[in-house]
């Protein structure tokens, strides 16, 4: 299925009248892995919430293909939203259902497939994330990493065009985190989905993202655009530099000086 181009045009957003970020504009290339970067509390996840229809922006528009997402009617928005797969930070699995039922629910609600097909699809999605044996487990019995994998399987259940991930590797050990990154990469290559991920994990950002935007909590706007690697190597903005190099102890002194 043709992946729609996503264009964010001058949006500002926040909660209860307070502005979290303003004048955010960017475009997400088809089939790219796009990173929303920035320090804790800068509004990365909030930006994602405006893009997946949970929080209307104050001003500006988000275009999915040629359609203005927030100007569309609610039912149309839901229709567009069905082409999105969203993975929430802790997995957000429905705790009263088994892993397989979690993956199957969107299929049951939005397709006319028979039970056997739905089960096959759900099992395929679980096996794609390496959890084919965990189908009948309840979310409460799964580890954090497994829960996130089931979350990805559920997000993939309707074969989405765009996959949103909120801090996919937060709280995972480096090996599990790397494995998850590889999985995201493989899924992008395999299904040809556009991936938009919120993250502040440098290894993930540098490893798999090919484009991105850097949000800053101080100025409440986007400081830089470009792939994480590019930002690391070329950006001379103090905030971006500090973020991208925080793992280099030899440059730590300079950064402390530059920072704020």
């Amino acid at each position, binding site marked *: 299925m043709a992946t729609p181009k996503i264009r964010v045009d001058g949006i500002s957003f926040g909660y209860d009248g307070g502005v979290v970020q303003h004048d955010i504009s960017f475009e997400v290339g088809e089939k790219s892995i796009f990173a929303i970067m920035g320090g804790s509390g800068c509004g990365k996840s909030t930006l994602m919430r405006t893009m997946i229809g949970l929080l209307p922006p104050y001003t500006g528009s988000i275009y999915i293909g040629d359609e203005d997402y927030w100007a569309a009617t609610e039912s149309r928005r839901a229709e567009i939203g069905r082409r999105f797969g969203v993975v929430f930070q802790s997995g957000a699995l429905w705790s*009263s259902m088994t892993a397989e039922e979690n993956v199957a629910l969107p299929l049951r609600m939005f397709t006319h*497939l028979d039970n056997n097909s739905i089960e096959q699809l759900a*099992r*395929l999605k679980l*096996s794609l994330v390496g959890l084919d*044996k965990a189908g009948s487990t309840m*979310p*409460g019995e799964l580890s954090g990493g497994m829960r996130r994998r089931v979350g990805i399987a559920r997000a993939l259940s309707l*074969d989405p065009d765009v996959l949103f991930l909120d801090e996919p590797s937060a709280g995972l050990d480096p090996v599990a985190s790397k494995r998850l990154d590889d999985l995201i990469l493989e899924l992008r290559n395999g*299904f040809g989905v556009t991936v938009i991920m919120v993250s502040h994990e440098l290894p993930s950002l540098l490893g798999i993202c090919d484009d991105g935007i850097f949000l800053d909590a101080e100025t409440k706007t986007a400081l830089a655009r470009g792939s994480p690697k590019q930002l690391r190597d070329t950006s001379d903005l103090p905030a971006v530099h500090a973020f991208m190099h925080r793992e280099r102890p030899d440059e730590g002194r300079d950064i402390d000086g530059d920072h704020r």
Partner: protein
Amino acid sequence: MNTTNGRAAMRRGRFAMNDTPAHPAADRRDGSAQGPRGEGWEARADRDGVLITLTGDWIAVNGIRTDEAAISRIIEAAGTRGISFDASGLGRWDSALLIFVASLRRAARGHHVPFHEDGLPEAATRLLALTTEAAPSAAGAPAGPKLVARIGQVTIGIWNETLEVFSLIGDTVLSAGASVRGRVRMRSVDLLTCMRDAGVAALPIVTVVNALTGAIVAFVGAVQLKRFGAGIFVADLVAVAMAREMTALMTAIVMSGRTGGAYAAEIATMVGNEEIDALRTIGIPVHDYLILPRIIALTCMMPLLYIYGFAVGVLGGLAVAVAMLNMSATSFIDETQVSLGGGQIVFGLLKSVAFGAMIAIVGCRSGLSAGRTAADVGKAATTAVVIGIVGIIALDAVFAVCANALSF
């Protein structure tokens, strides 16, 4: 079958795909290269094995085309020569194709048939590499334990739970003693908050329920007693029924739903958020800090609510008596005073203390024993209310039997 046919077949819709297990041509074994085929695919056997030509679009939401009968025919036709693919006519595809190819691969491995993936789109082979092998039968519902074993487990569970409840009661008694000497790590703010929630905040609902109960008792009594010209005894009926049974019972049931359920939900959520674990690790006794203020608050507030509820109930009865029997308010009050001994009130007070303690203990216990998910919070609240109400009525029966034995 070429691409055009494949598309045409697509248009026939998903019903055709799922309801027709195999294409009619699949059975046409005329010795030629023609092999099994189905919606969007066609198998051709030649010297090198079976070549499966994929055509058209394979979109999961339009239907899954994998059917075991067709797959086993392909395996049969392939023999030891192997299966390969030609995807040059393939249109758009997603999970539907993956399921088809994956189940074919599984069957091929099972029968040791060579399986060549190189004809497939590169993206599909990448995704296939991600899928791990799993026998579909393994995903079936696991057989549960036998009936006898389950009865045993449930019984042991009930026994353990009973022990837990008794140890909770024991702890409460011990730390209630300690709290008198001021040696309990409980914040007075918590105790006061709990008291407000279980006391003042509950007044509106206690008012409504008891006023209506008093009115109903008076109404039922009035209809009967009027026939014997004994209307004045409605006052006795209301006073005794409310003091001995109805106020304590109704207030306890209301508080079980209102406060017992809230305790269970609150503590269960704290369990889920690891707040309880956090308390334990820094060495704050959960019992003193969380449970005791709730038990003390509800046990202290219930008798007060009882007295208030009793007064309101008598007023409800009075309203009905005045309206239906043309009785004067003064004579109703007089009759009430005559019929009601202090013993009845004390009996009701004792009951309400017992009910309050039981509701709080059941609520806290079901909260503490809850699991960590959202569903578990709901279960904990339900358990608290159900056990609370059943317990109230059972306790009330015990009180009735005791009172009878003491000819009270």
